[in-house]
């Protein structure tokens, strides 16, 4: 079998903007990928799998800075000495976040743009465009602005672009994550039929890989290990043994001595969004739902099923059309809560930690709300240091915006923690960070007897962690009784 990609002695280090020098991401990384088959490369969050994909595509370090050495050979091209634009027909990459890859204001233009770079003539472009538009079922969206598409539609658009270019090596960065079952199937079959070299970068294993993947590898400890399926999965670790990672957790949520009171009561709540061009109006309706103190409630369901809308209602970011949200007033009696009151009652951990970062150092970020609340500067400083330590933020002089994703996520959680809200919502906080980190953060909130709502795509996670699972489907919420074993 011919070699499609070979990597030798690869070293890579990102540039550092803090006082400490940054650690190398790859040390003597080696790997070989054969032509015409499907490879999967696993990596836990922050192991560098996205960077690995971008290195193969000639985009790193050109656009990120950093120092690199070694060799990356695609076919006969030295990638590290080649500009990304010359690799168009050799390596094609589908980014993890489609919002950071889509460039054009119209679906058709997005597909055609790289074909224009390839100097194809109009009939050739037309043929490829039409073939991919119909294959990926984008016919109704031809003239739509890609910014207004759903997550799955954006992924399909980017796959259509990839297939229209049809490069020799396909790199799919977590592409299967955002697709539903049906399209996962379509994609993997297309990948097999194409006869191209396909490298799937993934953080979680799905059963589909067992059927189609030829080689297994994992990026771990700055290196790439190419081994058997079982060895790879063992290295990836069974994330689900969270008791091993954090044994204290079950005691807290399972404590039956604790008297539970509702902290948020939802009564006949409804909210609707005006329909988009393609669909009808979306209406969320929740008849009766209580969130209890000291408990973990999981909101589980597919994208667009109403989880986020309900969360926004609970935080007072939007006002309900009908129905109301009650919170305990004086003497514990439930009373109506206006959006303004809810904004100070419910905390919300946005999925993206960058939405709230604006200060130069971790210390400033941690002290901000304390100073706003009128706490003395020296006290605030001490509290910030304690809180930083609690969340594993030891260097308070670091610049948040240049820290790693995991650290930014912990900082965001720490800032939220300091607000000391009665109830806190975690919006898909489990994506992009290690499960152990996620559970440690949850644990800190639970220890303080905050009520927690976790939004997740992951039913297993929901069932394992939560006392109550609320399932969402098409704007309806269905409560599933507590599945957690005490």
């Amino acid at each position: 079998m011919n070699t499609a990609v070979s990597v030798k002695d690869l070293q890579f280090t990102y540039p550092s903007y803090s006082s400490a020098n940054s650690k190398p991401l790859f040390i003597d990384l080696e790997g070989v990928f054969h032509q015409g088959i499907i490879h999967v490369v696993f990596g836990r969050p922050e192991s560098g799998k996205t960077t690995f994909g971008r290195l193969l595509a000639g985009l790193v370090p050109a656009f990120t800075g950093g120092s690199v050495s070694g060799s990356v050979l695609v076919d006969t091209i030295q990638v590290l000495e080649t500009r990304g634009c010359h690799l168009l027909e050799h390596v094609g990459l589908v980014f993890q976040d489609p919002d950071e890859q889509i460039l054009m204001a119209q679906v058709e233009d997005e597909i055609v743009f790289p074909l224009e770079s390839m100097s194809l003539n109009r009939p050739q472009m037309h043929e490829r465009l039409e073939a991919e538009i119909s294959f990926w079922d984008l016919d109704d969206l031809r003239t739509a602005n890609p910014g207004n598409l759903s997550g799955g539609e954006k992924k399909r658009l980017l796959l259509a672009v990839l297939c229209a270019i049809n490069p020799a090596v396909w790199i799919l960065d977590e592409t299967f994550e955002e697709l539903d079952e049906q399209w996962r199937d379509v994609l993997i079959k297309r990948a097999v039929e194409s006869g191209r070299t396909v490298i799937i970068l993934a953080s979680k294993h799905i059963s589909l890989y067992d059927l189609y993947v030829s080689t297994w590898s994992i990026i771990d400890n700055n290196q790439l290990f190419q081994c058997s399926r079982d060895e790879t999965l063992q290295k990836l670790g069974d994330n689900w043994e969270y008791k091993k990672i954090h044994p204290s957790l079950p005691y807290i949520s399972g404590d039956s001595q604790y008297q539970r009171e509702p902290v948020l009561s939802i009564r006949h709540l409804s909210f609707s969004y005006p329909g988009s061009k393609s669909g009808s109006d979306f209406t969320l309706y929740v008849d009766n739902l209580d969130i209890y103190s000291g408990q973990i409630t999981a909101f589980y369901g597919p994208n667009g099923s109403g989880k986020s809308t309900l969360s926004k209602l609970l935080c007072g970011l939007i006002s309900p059309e009908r129905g109301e949200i009650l919170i305990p007033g004086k003497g514990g009696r439930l009373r109506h809560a206006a959006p303004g009151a809810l904004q100070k009652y419910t905390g919300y951990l946005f999925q993206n930690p960058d939405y709230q970062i604006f200060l130069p150092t971790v210390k400033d970020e941690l002290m901000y709300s304390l100073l706003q609340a009128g706490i003395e500067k020296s006290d605030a400083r001490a509290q910030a240091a304690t809180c930083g330590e609690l969340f594993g933020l030891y260097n308070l002089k670091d610049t948040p915006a240049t820290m790693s994703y995991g650290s930014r996520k912990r900082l965001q959680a720490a800032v939220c923690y300091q607000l000391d809200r009665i109830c806190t919502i975690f919006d898909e906080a489990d994506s992009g960070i290690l499960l152990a980190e996620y559970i440690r953060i949850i644990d800190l909130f639970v220890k303080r007897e905050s009520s927690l709502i976790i939004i997740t795509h992951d039913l297993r996670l929901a069932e394992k962690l939560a006392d109550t699972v609320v399932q969402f489907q098409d704007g309806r919420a269905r409560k599933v009784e507590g599945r957690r074993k005490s």
Partner: protein
Amino acid sequence: MTSSSKNISTSPAYRIVSISVLTAVTAVFTLLIRIPIAPTRGYINLGDVAIFFTAFTFGPITALISGGLGTAIADLLSGYAQWAPISLVIHGLQGLAAGLIVRKHIIKFRQNADNTAESDEHREKGGRKILISLAAGLVGTIIMVGLYFLSGAALYGIGPAAFEIPGNIVQCVVGFVGGYMLTRAVVKAYPPVRDLFL
């Protein structure tokens, strides 16, 4: 060891994308964040904040294109299409002038920062930096207010055009002060921005 960190901002793809993103930022600041004041154009907006920010961080050329195009697109989308060509020129020149005035200083400052690490000299120059920024703000304001007056006078007479002057001055001064403060905040909170000036 191949090392590349300083030349990112000169790659053509990077430049095109940065101009487009800042054009969109300018358009969004102009469209979204409005404070009603002058009746002729209806509002003061924070478009100028984005323009001065661009001029101080990304330099004159980026400010010329994104300042002009961003405000022109905003005019187009809000139904003031007749203003689009005029905004394109005026706000473009405003960004260009502000960027050119601070350019020499910023490039010199960056060279110094490269050669000598944190020295007291820099702090002494802090006062001069404010003065140079103020000059940029002043020239930007004069260009914007003056050219809007001239084009207003040509389009609908001296009276209404003169009536707009105070509103435009307020918008531009707010734009300068806001743009300056944001530049400081962003440079502190995200130091890599320093390397992007061209």
